[in-house]
Protein backbone atom coordinates (compact mmCIF):
# COMPACT_ATOMS: atom_id res chain seq x y z
CA UNK A 1 0.00 0.00 0.00
CA UNK A 2 1.65 3.30 -1.04
CA UNK A 3 1.86 6.44 1.07
CA UNK A 4 -1.26 8.05 -0.40
CA UNK A 5 -3.37 4.98 0.25
CA UNK A 6 -2.11 4.93 3.83
CA UNK A 7 -2.96 8.61 4.24
CA UNK A 8 -6.59 7.81 3.34
CA UNK A 9 -6.74 5.16 6.05
CA UNK A 10 -5.01 6.71 9.06
CA UNK A 11 -5.60 4.66 12.21
CA UNK A 12 -8.36 6.45 14.22
CA UNK A 13 -6.25 6.05 17.36
CA UNK A 14 -3.65 8.38 15.86
CA UNK A 15 -6.38 10.93 15.20
CA UNK A 16 -7.69 10.55 18.78
CA UNK A 17 -4.19 10.97 20.25
CA UNK A 18 -3.42 14.07 18.18
CA UNK A 19 -6.85 15.52 19.01
CA UNK A 20 -6.14 14.98 22.72
CA UNK A 21 -2.82 16.84 22.40
CA UNK A 22 -4.36 19.64 20.30
CA UNK A 23 -7.15 20.20 22.86
CA UNK A 24 -5.11 19.89 26.03
CA UNK A 25 -2.00 21.89 25.07
CA UNK A 26 -3.79 25.30 24.83
CA UNK A 27 -5.53 24.61 28.15
CA UNK A 28 -2.15 24.20 29.84
CA UNK A 29 -0.44 26.98 27.92
CA UNK A 30 -2.97 29.51 26.56
CA UNK A 31 -2.23 31.04 23.18
CA UNK A 32 -4.32 34.21 23.58
CA UNK A 33 -5.90 34.16 20.10
CA UNK A 34 -8.03 37.33 19.73
CA UNK A 35 -11.80 36.92 19.59
CA UNK A 36 -14.42 39.11 17.94
CA UNK A 37 -17.98 39.54 19.25
CA UNK A 38 -20.93 38.61 17.04
CA UNK A 39 -23.99 40.80 16.60
CA UNK A 40 -26.25 38.12 18.15
CA UNK A 41 -24.22 38.13 21.38
CA UNK A 42 -24.00 41.90 21.47
CA UNK A 43 -27.78 42.20 21.01
CA UNK A 44 -28.40 40.04 24.07
CA UNK A 45 -25.83 41.97 26.10
CA UNK A 46 -27.39 45.31 25.21
CA UNK A 47 -30.86 44.02 25.98
CA UNK A 48 -29.75 43.15 29.52
CA UNK A 49 -27.94 46.47 29.81
CA UNK A 50 -31.28 48.19 29.12
CA UNK A 51 -33.06 46.46 32.03
CA UNK A 52 -33.96 48.39 35.18
CA UNK A 53 -32.45 46.82 38.35
CA UNK A 54 -35.10 48.50 40.50
CA UNK A 55 -38.10 46.89 38.83
CA UNK A 56 -37.06 44.10 36.47
CA UNK A 57 -36.80 40.47 37.47
CA UNK A 58 -35.30 38.21 34.80
CA UNK A 59 -36.48 34.66 34.19
CA UNK A 60 -33.73 32.21 33.28
CA UNK A 61 -34.81 28.84 31.95
CA UNK A 62 -32.19 26.11 32.17
CA UNK A 63 -33.01 23.61 29.43
CA UNK A 64 -29.92 21.43 29.52
CA UNK A 65 -28.36 18.51 31.34
CA UNK A 66 -24.75 17.85 32.47
CA UNK A 67 -24.05 16.24 29.08
CA UNK A 68 -24.32 19.61 27.31
CA UNK A 69 -23.13 21.66 30.28
CA UNK A 70 -19.58 22.06 28.94
CA UNK A 71 -20.98 23.91 25.91
CA UNK A 72 -23.78 25.88 27.51
CA UNK A 73 -23.27 26.24 31.27
CA UNK A 74 -20.54 28.91 30.76
CA UNK A 75 -23.21 30.98 28.96
CA UNK A 76 -25.48 30.81 32.00
CA UNK A 77 -22.59 31.68 34.31
CA UNK A 78 -21.64 34.70 32.19
CA UNK A 79 -25.23 35.97 31.97
CA UNK A 80 -25.77 35.54 35.73
CA UNK A 81 -22.48 37.37 36.26
CA UNK A 82 -23.84 40.23 34.16
CA UNK A 83 -27.15 40.30 36.04
CA UNK A 84 -25.36 40.22 39.39
CA UNK A 85 -23.03 43.08 38.44
CA UNK A 86 -26.00 45.18 37.42
CA UNK A 87 -27.95 44.26 40.56
CA UNK A 88 -30.75 42.67 38.55
CA UNK A 89 -32.69 39.94 40.32
CA UNK A 90 -33.34 36.65 38.56
CA UNK A 91 -35.39 33.52 38.92
CA UNK A 92 -34.28 30.16 37.56
CA UNK A 93 -36.66 27.47 36.37
CA UNK A 94 -36.22 24.28 34.41
CA UNK A 95 -38.34 21.95 32.32
CA UNK A 96 -35.52 19.42 32.21
CA UNK A 97 -35.09 17.04 35.14
CA UNK A 98 -31.40 17.87 35.71
CA UNK A 99 -31.87 21.60 35.15
CA UNK A 100 -32.42 22.56 38.82
CA UNK A 101 -29.04 21.07 39.73
CA UNK A 102 -27.39 23.25 37.07
CA UNK A 103 -29.15 26.28 38.62
CA UNK A 104 -28.05 25.13 42.07
CA UNK A 105 -24.40 25.10 40.95
CA UNK A 106 -24.74 28.84 40.24
CA UNK A 107 -26.88 29.82 43.24
CA UNK A 108 -24.57 28.05 45.72
CA UNK A 109 -21.65 30.16 44.47
CA UNK A 110 -23.72 33.35 44.70
CA UNK A 111 -24.85 32.49 48.22
CA UNK A 112 -21.23 31.87 49.24
CA UNK A 113 -20.45 35.39 47.95
CA UNK A 114 -23.22 36.93 50.06
CA UNK A 115 -26.17 36.76 47.66
CA UNK A 116 -29.60 36.42 49.28
CA UNK A 117 -31.56 33.41 48.13
CA UNK A 118 -35.21 34.27 47.72
CA UNK A 119 -34.51 37.99 47.41
CA UNK A 120 -31.74 38.38 44.81
CA UNK A 121 -32.35 35.07 43.03
CA UNK A 122 -34.34 31.85 43.37
CA UNK A 123 -34.43 28.34 41.97
CA UNK A 124 -37.97 27.22 41.22
CA UNK A 125 -36.89 23.69 40.32
CA UNK A 126 -38.29 21.37 37.69
CA UNK A 127 -41.79 21.12 36.28
CA UNK A 128 -42.71 18.03 34.28
CA UNK A 129 -44.77 18.29 31.12
CA UNK A 130 -42.35 19.79 28.58
CA UNK A 131 -44.12 22.30 26.32
CA UNK A 132 -47.37 22.05 28.29
CA UNK A 133 -45.47 22.86 31.45
CA UNK A 134 -43.93 25.92 29.78
CA UNK A 135 -47.39 27.13 28.79
CA UNK A 136 -48.79 26.46 32.27
CA UNK A 137 -45.87 28.27 33.90
CA UNK A 138 -46.19 31.21 31.53
CA UNK A 139 -49.87 31.65 32.42
CA UNK A 140 -49.16 31.42 36.13
CA UNK A 141 -45.60 31.07 37.47
CA UNK A 142 -47.03 30.20 40.88
CA UNK A 143 -48.18 26.88 39.39
CA UNK A 144 -44.82 25.77 40.78
CA UNK A 145 -45.94 25.83 44.40
CA UNK A 146 -42.60 25.08 46.08
CA UNK A 147 -39.12 26.00 44.97
CA UNK A 148 -36.12 23.68 44.73
CA UNK A 149 -35.26 23.96 48.42
CA UNK A 150 -38.79 23.57 49.74
CA UNK A 151 -39.91 27.19 50.23
CA UNK A 152 -43.42 28.16 49.16
CA UNK A 153 -42.94 30.05 45.85
CA UNK A 154 -45.69 32.57 46.61
CA UNK A 155 -43.89 33.62 49.79
CA UNK A 156 -40.52 34.30 48.16
CA UNK A 157 -39.78 38.05 48.16
CA UNK A 158 -38.52 37.88 44.58
CA UNK A 159 -41.84 36.40 43.36
CA UNK A 160 -44.01 39.16 44.85
CA UNK A 161 -46.12 40.78 42.13
CA UNK A 162 -45.37 38.04 39.60
CA UNK A 163 -48.57 36.38 38.46
CA UNK A 164 -47.87 36.01 34.73
CA UNK A 165 -44.77 35.64 32.62
CA UNK A 166 -45.28 39.19 31.37
CA UNK A 167 -44.46 40.36 34.92
CA UNK A 168 -40.87 39.26 34.36
CA UNK A 169 -38.67 41.96 32.86
CA UNK A 170 -37.02 39.57 30.45
CA UNK A 171 -36.77 35.87 29.60
CA UNK A 172 -33.63 33.97 28.66
CA UNK A 173 -33.65 30.30 27.73
CA UNK A 174 -30.51 28.13 27.71
CA UNK A 175 -31.42 25.17 25.53
CA UNK A 176 -29.75 22.00 24.36
CA UNK A 177 -32.77 20.10 23.04
CA UNK A 178 -36.50 19.66 23.48
CA UNK A 179 -38.35 21.32 25.18
CA UNK A 180 -36.28 24.28 24.09
CA UNK A 181 -36.29 27.48 22.12
CA UNK A 182 -39.04 26.58 19.61
CA UNK A 183 -41.35 25.57 22.47
CA UNK A 184 -40.78 28.91 24.21
CA UNK A 185 -41.43 30.80 20.97
CA UNK A 186 -44.64 28.83 20.30
CA UNK A 187 -46.04 29.10 23.83
CA UNK A 188 -44.65 32.39 25.14
CA UNK A 189 -43.01 34.74 22.65
CA UNK A 190 -45.59 34.73 19.86
CA UNK A 191 -48.89 34.30 21.76
CA UNK A 192 -47.98 36.50 24.72
CA UNK A 193 -45.70 39.09 23.12
CA UNK A 194 -42.86 38.42 25.56
CA UNK A 195 -39.32 39.46 24.63
CA UNK A 196 -36.69 36.77 24.87
CA UNK A 197 -33.08 35.86 24.14
CA UNK A 198 -31.52 32.43 24.18
CA UNK A 199 -28.34 30.45 24.42
CA UNK A 200 -27.94 27.25 22.46
CA UNK A 201 -25.41 24.48 21.99
CA UNK A 202 -23.17 25.06 18.96
CA UNK A 203 -24.70 22.32 16.83
CA UNK A 204 -28.21 23.79 17.24
CA UNK A 205 -27.34 27.39 16.41
CA UNK A 206 -28.01 27.15 12.64
CA UNK A 207 -31.62 26.08 13.25
CA UNK A 208 -32.29 29.06 15.57
CA UNK A 209 -30.75 31.79 13.39
CA UNK A 210 -34.12 32.24 11.58
CA UNK A 211 -35.72 33.21 14.91
CA UNK A 212 -33.12 35.94 15.41
CA UNK A 213 -33.58 37.22 11.89
CA UNK A 214 -37.37 37.35 12.31
CA UNK A 215 -37.09 39.22 15.61
CA UNK A 216 -38.62 36.45 17.70
CA UNK A 217 -35.30 36.23 19.56
CA UNK A 218 -33.45 39.41 20.45
CA UNK A 219 -30.09 37.67 20.72
CA UNK A 220 -28.54 34.23 20.61
CA UNK A 221 -25.41 32.91 22.30
CA UNK A 222 -23.73 30.30 20.11
CA UNK A 223 -22.28 27.56 22.27
CA UNK A 224 -18.98 28.01 24.04
CA UNK A 225 -17.91 30.79 21.69
CA UNK A 226 -21.04 32.74 22.64
CA UNK A 227 -20.10 32.42 26.30
CA UNK A 228 -16.53 33.55 25.52
CA UNK A 229 -17.84 36.58 23.60
CA UNK A 230 -20.12 37.43 26.53
CA UNK A 231 -17.16 37.21 28.96
CA UNK A 232 -15.28 39.55 26.63
CA UNK A 233 -18.13 42.07 26.70
CA UNK A 234 -18.23 41.84 30.49
CA UNK A 235 -14.45 42.24 30.57
CA UNK A 236 -14.41 39.26 32.89
CA UNK A 237 -12.40 36.47 31.24
CA UNK A 238 -13.47 33.06 32.48
CA UNK A 239 -13.63 29.40 31.56
CA UNK A 240 -15.16 29.96 28.14
CA UNK A 241 -12.45 32.36 26.93
CA UNK A 242 -9.80 30.00 28.27
CA UNK A 243 -11.25 27.15 26.20
CA UNK A 244 -11.40 29.10 22.92
CA UNK A 245 -7.75 28.38 22.13
CA UNK A 246 -8.45 24.66 22.55
CA UNK A 247 -11.44 24.95 20.22
CA UNK A 248 -9.27 26.71 17.63
CA UNK A 249 -6.64 23.98 17.76
CA UNK A 250 -9.27 21.26 17.57
CA UNK A 251 -10.89 22.80 14.51
CA UNK A 252 -7.52 23.31 12.86
CA UNK A 253 -6.57 19.68 13.42
CA UNK A 254 -9.85 18.40 11.96
CA UNK A 255 -9.38 20.59 8.89
CA UNK A 256 -5.77 19.42 8.53
CA UNK A 257 -6.90 15.78 8.54
CA UNK A 258 -9.66 16.56 6.03
CA UNK A 259 -7.15 18.23 3.72
CA UNK A 260 -4.65 15.37 4.08
CA UNK A 261 -7.35 12.81 3.37
CA UNK A 262 -8.61 14.68 0.33
CA UNK A 263 -5.12 15.33 -1.05
CA UNK A 264 -4.34 11.63 -0.78
CA UNK A 265 -7.71 10.73 -2.32
CA UNK A 266 -7.21 13.06 -5.31
CA UNK A 267 -3.65 11.88 -5.95
CA UNK A 268 -4.77 8.24 -5.79
CA UNK A 269 -7.76 8.96 -8.05
CA UNK A 270 -5.69 10.73 -10.73
CA UNK A 271 -2.91 8.17 -10.50
CA UNK A 272 -5.38 5.36 -11.15
CA UNK A 273 -6.81 7.23 -14.15
CA UNK A 274 -3.33 7.47 -15.62
Amino acid at each position, binding site marked *: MNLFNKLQR*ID*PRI*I*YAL*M*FVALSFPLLSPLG*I*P*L*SVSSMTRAMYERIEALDPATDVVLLSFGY*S*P*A*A*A*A*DIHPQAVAVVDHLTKRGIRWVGVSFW*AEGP*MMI*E*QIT*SVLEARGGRYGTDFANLGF*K*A*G*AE*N*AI*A*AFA*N*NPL*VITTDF*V*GNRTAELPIMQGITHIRDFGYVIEFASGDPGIPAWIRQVVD*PMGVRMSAGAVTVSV*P*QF*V*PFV*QSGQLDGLL*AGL*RGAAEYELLLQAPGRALAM*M*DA*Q*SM*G*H*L*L*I*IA*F*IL*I*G*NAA*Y*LVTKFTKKD
Partner: protein
Amino acid sequence: MRREIPILITLIVGLVFLLGPITSGNIPLLDMQFRDLVSRHLSPWTTIIAAFALGLASVNLLRIHGNVISRQRSGWIYSVVLVVAMLFFGITRTMVELSPANRELAAFYNNFFNFLYNPLSGAMFALLAFYIASAAYRAFRLRSLEASVLLVAAVIVMLGAAPIGALIWDYFPALQTWLLRVPNLAGQRAIIIGAALGGFATSLRILLGLERGHLGGE
Protein backbone atom coordinates in the same frame (compact mmCIF):
# COMPACT_ATOMS: atom_id res chain seq x y z
CA MET B 1 -66.41 1.17 22.05
CA ARG B 2 -62.87 0.22 23.16
CA ARG B 3 -61.33 2.35 20.46
CA GLU B 4 -64.13 4.88 19.98
CA ILE B 5 -64.03 6.28 23.53
CA PRO B 6 -60.29 7.11 23.49
CA ILE B 7 -60.73 8.70 20.05
CA LEU B 8 -63.65 10.77 21.37
CA ILE B 9 -61.61 11.86 24.41
CA THR B 10 -58.72 12.83 22.10
CA LEU B 11 -61.07 14.90 19.92
CA ILE B 12 -62.76 16.72 22.80
CA VAL B 13 -59.56 17.51 24.73
CA GLY B 14 -57.73 18.45 21.53
CA LEU B 15 -60.52 20.84 20.55
CA VAL B 16 -60.47 22.47 23.98
CA PHE B 17 -56.71 23.03 23.70
CA LEU B 18 -57.14 24.34 20.15
CA LEU B 19 -59.94 26.75 21.05
CA GLY B 20 -58.15 28.11 24.14
CA PRO B 21 -55.84 30.60 22.42
CA ILE B 22 -58.31 31.66 19.73
CA THR B 23 -61.56 32.27 21.62
CA SER B 24 -62.51 34.82 24.24
CA GLY B 25 -66.13 34.16 25.14
CA ASN B 26 -67.36 32.00 28.01
CA ILE B 27 -68.28 28.36 27.49
CA PRO B 28 -72.01 27.95 28.09
CA LEU B 29 -72.91 26.15 31.36
CA LEU B 30 -69.29 26.28 32.57
CA ASP B 31 -69.09 30.09 32.77
CA MET B 32 -65.39 30.18 31.97
CA GLN B 33 -63.26 30.72 28.89
CA PHE B 34 -61.56 27.87 27.05
CA ARG B 35 -58.15 29.26 28.00
CA ASP B 36 -59.08 29.16 31.70
CA LEU B 37 -60.41 25.61 31.32
CA VAL B 38 -57.06 24.63 29.79
CA SER B 39 -54.82 26.45 32.26
CA ARG B 40 -56.75 25.63 35.45
CA HIS B 41 -58.15 22.17 34.83
CA LEU B 42 -56.41 20.44 31.91
CA SER B 43 -52.82 21.70 32.17
CA PRO B 44 -52.25 20.26 35.67
CA TRP B 45 -53.26 16.85 34.27
CA THR B 46 -50.54 17.06 31.61
CA THR B 47 -47.99 17.68 34.37
CA ILE B 48 -49.32 14.71 36.36
CA ILE B 49 -49.28 12.43 33.32
CA ALA B 50 -45.74 13.54 32.41
CA ALA B 51 -44.57 12.86 35.96
CA PHE B 52 -46.18 9.43 35.89
CA ALA B 53 -44.48 8.77 32.54
CA LEU B 54 -41.11 9.40 34.22
CA GLY B 55 -42.06 6.99 36.97
CA LEU B 56 -43.25 4.42 34.45
CA ALA B 57 -39.94 4.72 32.57
CA SER B 58 -38.04 4.08 35.79
CA VAL B 59 -40.15 1.04 36.64
CA ASN B 60 -39.69 -0.30 33.12
CA LEU B 61 -35.92 0.15 33.35
CA LEU B 62 -35.91 -1.72 36.66
CA ARG B 63 -37.96 -4.52 35.15
CA ILE B 64 -35.77 -4.91 32.05
CA HIS B 65 -32.45 -4.71 33.84
CA GLY B 66 -33.72 -6.78 36.76
CA ASN B 67 -34.49 -9.48 34.21
CA VAL B 68 -30.98 -9.21 32.74
CA ILE B 69 -29.46 -9.48 36.22
CA SER B 70 -31.61 -12.39 37.39
CA ARG B 71 -30.83 -14.41 34.23
CA GLN B 72 -27.18 -13.22 34.19
CA ARG B 73 -27.36 -12.37 30.51
CA SER B 74 -24.34 -10.89 28.70
CA GLY B 75 -23.37 -7.57 30.28
CA TRP B 76 -25.42 -8.12 33.46
CA ILE B 77 -22.73 -6.36 35.53
CA TYR B 78 -23.57 -3.11 33.74
CA SER B 79 -27.23 -3.65 34.57
CA VAL B 80 -26.27 -3.94 38.24
CA VAL B 81 -24.39 -0.64 38.02
CA LEU B 82 -27.37 1.01 36.33
CA VAL B 83 -29.90 -0.26 38.87
CA VAL B 84 -27.70 0.64 41.86
CA ALA B 85 -27.06 4.15 40.48
CA MET B 86 -30.73 4.69 39.67
CA LEU B 87 -31.88 3.58 43.11
CA PHE B 88 -29.17 5.57 44.87
CA PHE B 89 -29.95 8.85 43.10
CA GLY B 90 -33.71 8.27 43.20
CA ILE B 91 -33.90 7.39 46.89
CA THR B 92 -31.41 10.06 48.00
CA ARG B 93 -33.17 12.81 46.10
CA THR B 94 -36.55 11.66 47.41
CA MET B 95 -35.21 11.90 50.96
CA VAL B 96 -33.87 15.41 50.22
CA GLU B 97 -37.28 16.48 48.88
CA LEU B 98 -39.05 15.06 51.95
CA SER B 99 -36.69 16.81 54.41
CA PRO B 100 -35.74 20.11 52.75
CA ALA B 101 -34.30 21.45 56.00
CA ASN B 102 -31.66 18.69 56.08
CA ARG B 103 -28.74 20.59 54.51
CA GLU B 104 -26.24 17.78 55.11
CA LEU B 105 -28.31 15.35 53.07
CA ALA B 106 -28.73 17.92 50.30
CA ALA B 107 -24.96 18.53 50.29
CA PHE B 108 -24.37 14.75 50.18
CA TYR B 109 -26.60 14.43 47.10
CA ASN B 110 -25.10 17.55 45.48
CA ASN B 111 -21.57 16.16 45.85
CA PHE B 112 -22.50 12.93 44.07
CA PHE B 113 -24.32 14.84 41.33
CA ASN B 114 -21.64 17.51 40.82
CA PHE B 115 -18.54 15.32 41.17
CA LEU B 116 -19.74 12.00 39.75
CA TYR B 117 -22.76 12.34 37.45
CA ASN B 118 -21.77 15.75 36.05
CA PRO B 119 -18.22 14.84 34.93
CA LEU B 120 -19.29 11.41 33.63
CA SER B 121 -22.07 12.94 31.51
CA GLY B 122 -19.72 15.62 30.24
CA ALA B 123 -17.09 13.00 29.38
CA MET B 124 -19.60 11.00 27.32
CA PHE B 125 -20.51 14.12 25.36
CA ALA B 126 -16.84 15.07 25.00
CA LEU B 127 -16.11 11.73 23.31
CA LEU B 128 -18.09 13.09 20.38
CA ALA B 129 -15.23 15.47 19.58
CA PHE B 130 -12.94 12.54 18.87
CA TYR B 131 -15.54 10.60 16.89
CA ILE B 132 -16.38 13.71 14.83
CA ALA B 133 -12.69 14.26 14.05
CA SER B 134 -12.36 10.69 12.83
CA ALA B 135 -15.69 10.73 10.98
CA ALA B 136 -14.95 14.09 9.32
CA TYR B 137 -11.59 12.79 8.11
CA ARG B 138 -13.22 9.72 6.55
CA ALA B 139 -16.46 11.26 5.27
CA PHE B 140 -15.48 14.65 3.89
CA ARG B 141 -14.07 13.60 0.51
CA LEU B 142 -14.35 15.35 -2.87
CA ARG B 143 -16.29 12.47 -4.39
CA SER B 144 -19.01 14.56 -6.04
CA LEU B 145 -20.17 18.16 -6.50
CA GLU B 146 -22.54 17.93 -3.51
CA ALA B 147 -19.81 16.43 -1.31
CA SER B 148 -17.43 19.21 -2.40
CA VAL B 149 -19.96 21.92 -1.52
CA LEU B 150 -20.50 20.28 1.88
CA LEU B 151 -16.76 20.08 2.47
CA VAL B 152 -16.09 23.72 1.55
CA ALA B 153 -19.04 24.93 3.66
CA ALA B 154 -17.90 22.84 6.63
CA VAL B 155 -14.35 24.18 6.44
CA ILE B 156 -15.59 27.79 6.19
CA VAL B 157 -17.98 27.37 9.14
CA MET B 158 -15.34 25.68 11.30
CA LEU B 159 -12.74 28.35 10.59
CA GLY B 160 -15.29 31.12 10.93
CA ALA B 161 -16.47 29.84 14.30
CA ALA B 162 -13.01 29.33 15.82
CA PRO B 163 -11.02 32.47 16.71
CA ILE B 164 -8.02 31.22 14.72
CA GLY B 165 -10.00 31.52 11.49
CA ALA B 166 -9.85 35.31 11.66
CA LEU B 167 -6.08 35.10 12.11
CA ILE B 168 -5.69 32.93 8.99
CA TRP B 169 -7.93 35.09 6.79
CA ASP B 170 -9.95 38.18 7.79
CA TYR B 171 -12.96 37.12 5.76
CA PHE B 172 -13.60 33.69 7.32
CA PRO B 173 -15.92 35.08 10.04
CA ALA B 174 -17.85 37.16 7.50
CA LEU B 175 -18.20 34.16 5.17
CA GLN B 176 -19.39 32.00 8.04
CA THR B 177 -21.95 34.64 9.01
CA TRP B 178 -23.17 34.86 5.41
CA LEU B 179 -23.50 31.06 5.19
CA LEU B 180 -25.54 31.00 8.41
CA ARG B 181 -27.74 33.95 7.56
CA VAL B 182 -28.48 33.34 3.89
CA PRO B 183 -28.40 29.74 2.56
CA ASN B 184 -28.72 28.13 6.01
CA LEU B 185 -31.55 30.46 7.00
CA ALA B 186 -33.42 29.73 3.78
CA GLY B 187 -33.04 25.99 4.24
CA GLN B 188 -33.93 26.07 7.95
CA ARG B 189 -37.04 28.15 7.24
CA ALA B 190 -38.15 25.62 4.67
CA ILE B 191 -37.61 22.80 7.19
CA ILE B 192 -39.43 24.67 10.00
CA ILE B 193 -42.43 25.46 7.78
CA GLY B 194 -42.50 21.95 6.32
CA ALA B 195 -42.29 20.36 9.76
CA ALA B 196 -45.02 22.67 11.06
CA LEU B 197 -47.35 21.80 8.18
CA GLY B 198 -46.59 18.10 8.65
CA GLY B 199 -47.24 18.42 12.38
CA PHE B 200 -50.51 20.21 11.70
CA ALA B 201 -51.64 17.50 9.29
CA THR B 202 -50.68 14.72 11.70
CA SER B 203 -52.39 16.47 14.61
CA LEU B 204 -55.55 16.84 12.55
CA ARG B 205 -55.46 13.13 11.69
CA ILE B 206 -55.02 12.27 15.39
CA LEU B 207 -57.89 14.56 16.42
CA LEU B 208 -60.18 13.05 13.80
CA GLY B 209 -59.22 9.51 14.79
CA LEU B 210 -57.61 8.72 11.42
CA GLU B 211 -54.24 8.18 13.11
CA ARG B 212 -54.48 5.59 15.89
CA GLY B 213 -50.89 4.62 16.58
CA HIS B 214 -50.92 6.43 19.94
CA LEU B 215 -53.76 4.17 21.13
CA GLY B 216 -51.60 1.03 21.03
CA GLY B 217 -53.38 -2.28 21.06
CA GLU B 218 -53.59 -4.81 18.23
